[in-house]
């Protein structure tokens, strides 16, 4: 069987539709995970509760210690047991969020460690405390130093969304499967898929360099 590139070109419009869903899932899942990780980071730093810290450590080690595919299936199949029928899209986003939040929490921990204690003290001495202290002073500094690992984590999330095809989310991978199971040309179709995934990740990781450069230029 010889490689016929016209099958690739024919597939591209539908593949791009799938890529659009992939992007949506990745952006939504990652945004929610950053939000969750930020809340976890603030809670564990300011509450200093042993029970809470234990729960967080427990959660992180379970997420990191099990395959993401198992996590996705578990959330997809376990929630209906409790009467929650979320549908594949929502279940997929939930799985991605819970998985990524564990890694983002670890990233933010590193970023936070790079903010000197004196930054908190200076703010407190001026009467800035509570949420304002985090929002205006601490979090901006934490996120600036965390940009490279956060962008890296986003590309991981982007690639992990391909696994959601297994719970029937119609994203890029699922669309590819649908196309080649109809035309029997998996190599041509998957080549297109391959390149689209690569381009998306490439643009994202370049944006890291751009963001870093911009923020450094702003400060230096």
């Amino acid at each position, binding site marked *: 069987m010889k490689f016929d590139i016209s099958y690739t070109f024919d597939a591209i419009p539908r593949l791009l539709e799938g890529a659009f869903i992939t992007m949506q899932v990745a952006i939504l899942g990652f945004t929610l995970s950053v939000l969750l990780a930020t809340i976890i980071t603030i809670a564990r730093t300011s509450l200093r509760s042993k029970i809470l810290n234990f729960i967080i450590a427990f959660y992180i080690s379970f997420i990191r210690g099990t395959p993401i595919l198992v996590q996705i299936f578990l959330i997809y199949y376990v929630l209906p047991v409790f009467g929650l029928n979320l549908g594949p899209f929502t279940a997929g986003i939930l799985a991605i969020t819970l998985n990524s939040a564990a890694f983002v929490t670890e990233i933010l921990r590193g970023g936070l460690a790079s903010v000197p204690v004196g930054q908190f003290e*200076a*703010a*407190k*001495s*001026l*009467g800035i405390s509570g949420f304002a202290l985090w929002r*205006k002073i601490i979090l901006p500094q934490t996120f600036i130093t965390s940009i490279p690992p956060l962008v890296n984590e986003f590309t991981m999330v982007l690639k992990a969304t391909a696994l959601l095809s297994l719970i029937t989310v119609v994203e890029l991978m699922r669309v590819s499967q649908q196309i080649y199971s109809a035309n029997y040309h998996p190599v041509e179709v998957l080549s297109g898929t391959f390149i689209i995934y690569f381009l998306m990740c490439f643009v994202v990781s370049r944006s890291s360099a751009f963001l870093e450069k911009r923020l450094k230029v702003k400060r230096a």
Partner: protein
Amino acid sequence: MKSKFLEIKELNKKFGPINALKNVSLNISKGEVICIIGPSGCGKSTLLRAINWLTPPDSGMVKLEGKIIGSENGKLSIEQSKLLNDFRARMGMVFQQFNVWPHLNVLENVIKAQIVVAKRSREVAEPKAIKILSDVGLKDKIDEWPDNLSGGQKQRLAIARSLAMDPVLMLLDEPTSALDPELVGEVLSVLRNLVNEGMTMLIVTHELGFASKFGDRIVFMDGGEIIEEGAPNIILKSPKTDRLKLFLEKLDITSLKEKH
């Protein structure tokens, strides 16, 4: 007798087995400049940080303009906790390591707390910030990022940031100790202006020259206690206790060594 402006009463603080503050009491009247000296680890920084509750003391209280923070068991009442932010904003604090905010430019460093804490509008906060930055000689730096400033400029920015909150009292924790020798002068001259404007100040310092010239009172601490206090010419020229004599001798030897 002068009225009590700031009253520090029986502050105690332990770090593990170490007594950082042992029953420290001090009364300060308005406009007074107090220089706190003493060997490292004597509790002088802890005292400063206990006054604005950055390091909450185990017991004792601080009274500023009639408002009390603290209690015998060191716990704050709910009303006091609510007051704490205002209480802190009344006292400007300047740190040895400057602690300016690197993610905000010079102007925003001075505006931020005005908007967040004092609830001023940007229209009010900005001209005020520019005025204060001019006073400390940073007018041409307002768009700069703190990372691009010298140590002396950073410290002047930190002082400006505190002054923007209209403090009635300044707490300065070794404001010149982290500076290169040639940059000490510019910070001291800003402090000198504050003294001349009648600002009440508590300064932890090793600059005995500054202390003797501008301090109304020198407080010598050792082992978490106030050992001696009094007018600079009395304290520095005729120390009563051996501990202070020893401390001053050591300083003299170091300064001689530096000269040769």
